């Protein structure tokens, strides 16, 4: 059962995409100052900024749609773990640079397709965010897929690590295309998209990246699910504990 307490279907829909972006932005932020080269610290920081920027816009919109005084930061920082509806993929921690890039690449490939469709949303705010975000996602994919290829087709060690990262993240990719009643409702209104419609192109994109990277597409058919219903892996709670710490410790203050 979805425990999300936003007041309208539209707000709920907007929040799930905001959640994807804020959680991934937070994961990337953890990595800043830990990249293999200075130039890559700059790149990762850019990713984080773009995702958090998207989240800011979407949370602000959800707040306006709700209209009950809960602002963007309250939405971002003051819900319980079960109320976050992000995909499981974005909350996964990274053990190394290969996992940072595998997670990023799979998500970027999805977001490029998502934002491209949402650019034509009948909801002007969503369309506006999407038109900006599709450019960011396209660049992210160029960068992340470049690293997947470079590491996959680099040394024996990097090939092994990249394959391991792809295998580890793979079971969280199916969830991106599941779709639920809310997705169908939003798609029918022309506001949103049916996630399943993105799958074929995503698979083609990812297949060609994996092939160029000399990596094997995981055969494991098992796919984890639950993020959109607030059922997460254990990793999210700790991420939230850190992200929400200030807002939880010092309630109701201005920063």
């Amino acid at each position: 059962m979805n425990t999300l307490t936003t007041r309208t279907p539209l707000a709920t829909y907007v929040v799930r995409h905001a959640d994807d972006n804020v959680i991934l932005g937070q994961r990337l932020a953890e990595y800043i100052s830990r990249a293999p080269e200075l130039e890559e610290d700059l790149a990762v920081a850019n990713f984080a900024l773009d995702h958090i920027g998207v989240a800011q816009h979407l949370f602000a919109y959800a707040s306006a749609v709700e209209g009950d005084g809960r602002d963007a930061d309250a939405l971002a920082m003051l819900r319980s773990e079960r109320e976050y509806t992000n995909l499981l993929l974005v909350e996964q921690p990274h053990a190394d640079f290969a996992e940072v890039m595998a997670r990023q690449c799979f998500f970027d490939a999805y977001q490029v397709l998502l934002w491209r469709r949402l650019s034509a949303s009948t909801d002007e705010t969503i369309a506006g965010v999407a038109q900006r975000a599709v450019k960011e996602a396209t660049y992210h994919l160029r960068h992340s897929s470049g690293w997947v290829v470079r590491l996959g087709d680099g040394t024996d060690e990097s090939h092994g690590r990249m394959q391991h990262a792809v295998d580890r993240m793979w079971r969280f990719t199916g969830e991106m295309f599941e779709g639920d009643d809310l997705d169908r409702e939003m798609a029918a209104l022309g506001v949103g998209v049916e996630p399943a419609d993105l799958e074929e192109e995503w698979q083609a994109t990812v297949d060609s990246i994996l092939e160029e990277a000399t990596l094997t597409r995981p055969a494991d058919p098992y796919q984890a699910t639950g993020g959109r219903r607030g059922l997460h892996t254990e990793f999210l709670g700790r991420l939230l504990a850190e992200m929400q710490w200030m807002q939880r410790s010092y309630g109701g203050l201005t920063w």
Partner: protein
Amino acid sequence: MSYDVPLAPGEQPEDLDLSTVAEHGFPLWEVFVRAKRGLSHTHVGSLHAPDAETAIQNARDGYTRRAEGVSVWVVRSAEIVASDDAESLFEPFEDKPYRHPTFYDIPDEVGQL
């Protein structure tokens, strides 16, 4: 000053071996940015990258974060051929004022020329 960390009493500066340029790691690339359409690409600095595509991406993230550019060039630093900047190379041009329009006195009545 803050970035000139002083030597503690009795401490010697580190040895710098300047006789060889040891390039390990990624090669160095020079970065040129076109600030806006209609302007030339201008040198802005350098960066390290394993290949040209990465160099372009790193240049974008490193040198255009505030929308300073609409286009970048990257060139392997080792490929740049530079003049030796000897006095004989450029100074001879300094005494040819007749190449400049201000050398000529033309009466105002002549108008635009």
